[in-house]
């Protein structure tokens, strides 16, 4: 892992539904098979719960819900990506549910296209850029820090109106 961290243009691609996304490998610590998730009552729907990651308690986010898709349905391919994201200058570990993990791609900086401003279903501030995988597929390179922080509060406010306060993590 440590070696890969240094290579900044490696991306791990994963699927949510039919769409392919990718996160810089420096953000991904671990890929776990699906395990038992303990639900935490009265938390926002996209907070799937917590898992036991070798003795520490790791919050797990249903990434699909966060991207406005339907809730994850568990299949043998479902994985938890353990990521280290930076929120308000603090490193934070969080698990994200994904439908399946694809591959590690070496993407040259030149090949990264700017994120589309119009016509995208996803908010462009989450996206670092696009990469053309083949003629049919584009991959969205995600800015994981932003996905899990700045707009978090917006999502929260929509989903739990009564939890109102500074509910970032």
């Amino acid at each position, binding site marked *: 892992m440590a070696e890969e961290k240094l290579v900044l243009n490696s991306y791990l691609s994963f699927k949510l539904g039919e769409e392919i996304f990718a996160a810089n490998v420096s953000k991904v610590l671990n890929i776990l098979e699906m395990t*038992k998730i*303990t*639900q*935490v*009552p*009265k*938390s926002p729907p996209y*907070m799937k719960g*917590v*898992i*036991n990651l070798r*003795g*520490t*308690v790791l*919050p797990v*986010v249903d990434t699909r819900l966060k991207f406005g898709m339907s809730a994850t349905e568990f299949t043998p391919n479902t994985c938890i990506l353990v990521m280290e994201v930076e*929120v308000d200058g603090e490193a*934070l570990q*969080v698990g994200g549910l994904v439908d399946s993990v694809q591959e590690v791609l070496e993407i040259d900086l030149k090949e990264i296209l700017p994120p589309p401003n119009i016509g995208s279903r996803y908010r462009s501030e989450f996206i670092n850029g696009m990469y053309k995988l083949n003629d049919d597929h584009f991959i969205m390179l995600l800015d994981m820090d932003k996905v899990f922080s700045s707009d978090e509060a917006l999502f929260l406010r929509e989903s739990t109106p009564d*939890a109102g*306060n500074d*509910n*970032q*993590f």
Partner: protein
Amino acid sequence: MDQFKKKFFEEAFDLIQDLEDSLLILEEDPDSSSHIERVFRAMHTIKGNSAMFGFSHIDRFTHNLETVYDFVRQGKLKITSPLLTATLSAVDQLKTLLNEGDTVSDETMAESLRITEQVNSFIAGTAKVGEEEDRGLALLAKDADIASTYFISFKPHADIFKTGTNPLYLVDELCSLGRSITYAHTEAIPELSLEMEADSCYTAWSIFLATTEDVNALYDVFIFVEGSCEVDITLLAGIDLLGNTQFSDRIAELYLAGGAFNAAELKHYAETLCTSEQALECAQTARRTVTTKENTISSIRVSSDKVDGLMNLVSELVTMQAQLSLFAEKSLLPELSAISENMDKITRRLRDTAFGICLIPLDSMLTRFHRLVRDVSKELGKDVAFITEGTDTELDKTVIENLADPIMHILRNSLDHGIESAQERAAKGKPAQGTIRLRAFYSGTNVHIQIFEDGRGINPETIRAKAIESGIIGADAVLSKQETLDLIFRSGFSTAARVTELSGRGVGMDVVKRKISEIRGEVEIDSEVDKGISITIKLPLTLSIIDGLLVKISETYFVIPLSAVDTIYAAKHTDLKKYNNMVVLAGRQMPYVYLRTYFDYPANDEDQEQIVVVSYSDISVGLVVDRVVGEYQAVLKPLGKAFKSLDFVSGAAILGDGTIALVLDTTRVIRQATAR
């Protein structure tokens, strides 16, 4: 070197704390010789240490203070209130000096000088500081067991400096062995002329030492300079003669008369004294022995990192133990379950012991509070007694660290706004002296700290008017008395008509409340006009490992702290729904919270459920769960920022099979569930 300096600072702050403590006691009891002694000794040690580590400005500063207290110790100066005030401000200055360390600003230096002058003014009438030192009269007292008195004549050769030895260090070292009186023989010093060699030693010393060490220990002091000095040690008496004024007067006389002491003569004189004084002296030393024993209570200083490390290991051990217990239960080996059970007992004891280490009594903060009350009441010209109760109540060190500021703030508020001036109090028929009482006690899973003052109290009407004025509530809001009083915890609220230097900047009680919520505590306020205010801080005994009751609701495990649990009853689901959240258990009517509904879980298929009765404030409340699994030692792990808003869950615990259980904060669960 840095690590030694760190040690020095640590020790210095401890000494200062001790110093402050003793000074405040001296205020109550100015004649307490044991505390004067403590003050002197603390100053002396700070002085010595700072000189050793090259903080010469601290050394000089403390030296002056020490001189003053040397006079006090000798009975030449009385402890007075202005002297204490000056000393306390000097102690504050000492703190500043220590905080600034190597880089002392000019302002601080100027302040040091000012305080030094102020302190010196107290002894101006008694004697001149410099002279006293020139005469080489250094009294150094130490508690001693049964001591013997020795006469040591120490004559360094002229070339002793060439070996790099400082004879004064040897004298110091000797003096550190016990009580001593030292005389310097300076007759041999030649006139300042060309013949005088700057690197030659012309001085000799005569030391009278009362020590428990044997004569070999005294010789050991000189072990490295054997070739370059003459040392003569004579045992004068088997008791401590230095406490005997007759003896000390006699040697002072001899010194002034001619300087040189004759060992044989002294021994003879000592013997005659001995027989008459022995009985009295023995009694005295015996008494001293007792106090010495108290001072040497065996406690050690451990860095908090190590303690945290220990706690982490114990937590992991407890988790592993849970796994072992589970495995032992499943396996059919009888020996294994016996071992596992024993391990479990030991783990529990280890856990409790490790916790004990992290707990600090409230006492550790008290000096600061006493000091604050003293200083502020003086400044405001109010007479206030500060009474503390139950300060041996122990709390986790992190809680203690975060508690000092809020309490200081509350005290400051009470002194400034609460307690009236003496005239006002007299007019109301109250005793002229105001009282602030700080009381700490355990209550279930909480520690309560109550601060009560008998001042003017808060008028709810004033608060209401103020709150409407500052727009916190609308003019037509209907609030109970308690709700009105709680308004003072809102930000931007200050009841004081005038803003003073001390409090009332409008950043008052809301900060207190926030700080205390940060350590998962709560603040409550109650007040009667002209009777006073009582503020109660409730703190959870949150420790990282708790004894809990493991329960299951739907598919999730929860841990309820065992200390909150009263009884467990079985109940039928059909019985529960009949009344309005009230159930009759063992003939008692009791409110209950149906946790499945509160947690938005689907309805239960089973009819059989269990009610865990927990104490909530002063009443009992039932929590309805699906099933009680059993007792469980839970290692509390934080849920993390992701679940910050869920304050009814104090953390998570990992069970033996690796699943996660959520630890409930019953007080918050009940409050939130009933608020709906």
